[in-house]
């Protein structure tokens, strides 16, 4: 079994290559994938996949309420991006956030328990699907586009404190038309903020296809004066290399300017507004996990049994987490009014009527 393989496959693969905007050249067309890395990416992607499919099940059973924006099919993005940065870097995304919550340090247990609104949830049941946070991960944001200026603000802090960290600001093709994103491009460029703007283009903004919403679907060019890359978001190595490339340029000491990277994805499954036929078609053509699996098997980096074993372990982890998420009690009622203010003395909060005074602690 070979330990290391070079992935010329990137340059040869399919219809996507790396398009560049305002750049002399893009990321290297060759990447090195070690066996350890391959297994880790596989495990993480599979974990996200299984977790999201389980969430889908629970949502259909109405055990998860409200919104549940699923990430299955897009795993290569979250995993590839994380592979291209450090945990000490920062990341913010919109509401399709479960995958990132995991890659940024959350556990499947606390993610699922948050979806089911239990006290063991990552936000103690108070946030739900769209509001999960971990260290250096700023959610989970429900308002389309609002997370992009926030991310640039995080980048401002990185630069201000001189920490050589950067912030990855993710948004979808729908959000890409938001005015505040262009305001952010402007200020990030002016002030040379260390951020990477990443558009995950799954061809649909809510229910509207990109052609009907965007005068230009070249999202990687829409930063105008900001250099951009367009890469295949289904290939975890492409994503990793593009992220690494952008990150290197972002860190202080290099050219310190923001980057727009679009990951063009062909999303399959569970995006609320697709037809069944569309889903089937896409699923059969392009699956990031299958792609990685094939690559590893054909290069003798892992055996079928080994990968199956990972599948079994992942499945067990998800089952345990789902069990926890469906049996953990809901938050206690006396937590209702807590966490309004940080570092404040306890205060009174009015209940639903004048005689009901509830207690709030920080």
């Amino acid at each position, binding site marked *: 079994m070979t330990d290391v393989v070079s992935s010329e496959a990137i340059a040869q693969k399919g219809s996507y290559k790396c398009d560049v905007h305002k750049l002399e050249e893009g990321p290297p067309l060759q990447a090195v994938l070690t066996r350890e890395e391959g297994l880790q990416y596989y495990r993480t992607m599979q974990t996200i996949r299984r977790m999201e499919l389980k969430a889908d099940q629970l949502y259909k059973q109405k055990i998860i309420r409200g919104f549940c924006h699923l990430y299955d099919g897009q795993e290569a993005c979250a995993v590839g991006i994380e592979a291209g940065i450090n945990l000490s870097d920062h990341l913010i995304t919109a509401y399709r956030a479960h995958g990132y919550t995991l890659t940024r340090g959350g556990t499947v247990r606390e993610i699922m328990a948050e979806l089911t609104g239990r006290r063991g949830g990552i936000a103690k049941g*108070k946030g739900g699907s769209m509001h999960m946070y971990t260290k250096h991960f*700023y*959610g989970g944001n429900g308002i389309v586009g609002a997370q992009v200026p926030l991310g640039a603000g995080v980048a401002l802090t990185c630069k201000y404190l001189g920490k050589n960290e950067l912030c990855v600001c993710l948004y979808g093709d729908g959000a890409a038309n938001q005015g505040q994103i262009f305001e952010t491009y402007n200020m990030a460029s002016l002030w040379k903020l260390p951020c990477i703007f990443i558009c995950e283009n799954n061809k649909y903004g809510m229910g509207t296809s990109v052609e009907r919403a965007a005068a230009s679907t070249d999202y990687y060019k829409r930063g105008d004066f900001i250099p951009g890359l367009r890469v295949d978001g289904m290939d975890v190595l492409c994503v990793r290399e593009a992220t690494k490339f952008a990150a290197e340029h972002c860190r202080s000491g290099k050219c310190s300017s923001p980057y727009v990277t679009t990951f063009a994805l062909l999303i399959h499954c569970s995006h609320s507004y697709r037809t069944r036929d569309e889903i089937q078609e896409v699923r059969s053509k392009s699956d990031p996990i299958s792609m990685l699996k094939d690559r590893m098997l054909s290069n003798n980096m892992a055996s079928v049994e080994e990968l199956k074993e990972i599948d079994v372990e992942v499945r067990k982890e998800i089952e345990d987490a789902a069990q926890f998420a469906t049996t953990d009690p809901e938050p206690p009622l006396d937590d209702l009014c807590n966490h309004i203010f940080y570092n404040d003395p306890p205060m009174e909060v009015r209940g639903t009527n004048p005689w009901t005074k509830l207690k709030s602690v920080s």
Partner: protein
Amino acid sequence: MASLRCFLRSGKNAVTAVLRREFHGTPPAAVQVTVRDALNQAMDEELERDERVFLLGEEVAQYDGAYKVSRGLWKKYGDKRIIDTPITEMGFAGIAVGAAMAGLRPICEFMTFNFSMQAIDQVINSAAKTYYMSAGLQSVPIVFRGPNGASAGVAAQHSQCFAAWYGHCPGLKVVSPWSAEDARGLLKSAIRDDNPVVFLENELMYGVPFEMSEEVQSKDFLIPIGKAKIERQGNHITLVSHSRMVSLCLDAAAVLAKEGIECEVINMRTIRPLDAEAIETSIMKTNHLVTVEGGWPQFGIGAEILAWIMEGPAFNYLDAPAVRVTGVDIPMPYAKILEDNSIPQIKDIIFSVKKTLNV
């Protein structure tokens, strides 16, 4: 041993007494300070005290501030800490909130709060609600400040009062200073507060001087957020107000005093959390209430105070219905005569007091 200690104690006292006699007491040095300068000094001191504090907004740096509130700060602290932004409120407010999430302590200036409407999603959804949504994982130590309410001759789009809008939302603290002392103590408290604070200034008050005692001039002088102040004691009626209207209440009280009517004037200082207790205590003494605000009547500050009083212990002490004096329920007109008649005047307060007291 005891006698030695005794001797030392008296000796020490004797020495101080001698010193006191030598440098005989002059009253503490009070100075006249405008609201603008009080805000400027407060920001300067807080910028100096904590490196994480910075100011961003339109014209705050090289222009010294649209209303000169940040005069001299850019010269002293430079580009890193005093940042001129493009005219893009939604973007820069979001950037400020993100910076606060990641560990800095931004002061985000809106040239007036009318422009905050462009950024209100960031103030409410990104700043105010985040600590709760994250169940305590993510705090947002940010101050949004700027002039609020009516100015002079700036017409409808530049004259709205946002106290009620921001006062409505849990997760925010909303502060409305009147005097220079208020401005200084409350802004320092706001900057040191680990939560989002909306700080509503008033353009017409910027140039007004107030006496500031030595105590207030000290670098750690703080006014607690959430506590009102009684600016004038009285027995016959309680006037509750915030910001510039406090001046009018005091002027009205002076006129009424000549007729033997003694008004107790309460300066709210904070809109949210509302110091209902201070108002209730006063009503239990005076038995009458008139609120005075510059903003519109419907769903406003006065409406909220009256509701609190209805629901609380002070209701039984009212000898007459509590009423509100407010701005007229119209967009602000431009012509001076129209503008003057769109906001409460001293005569309106006097009229309402007399009606309430049935005199």
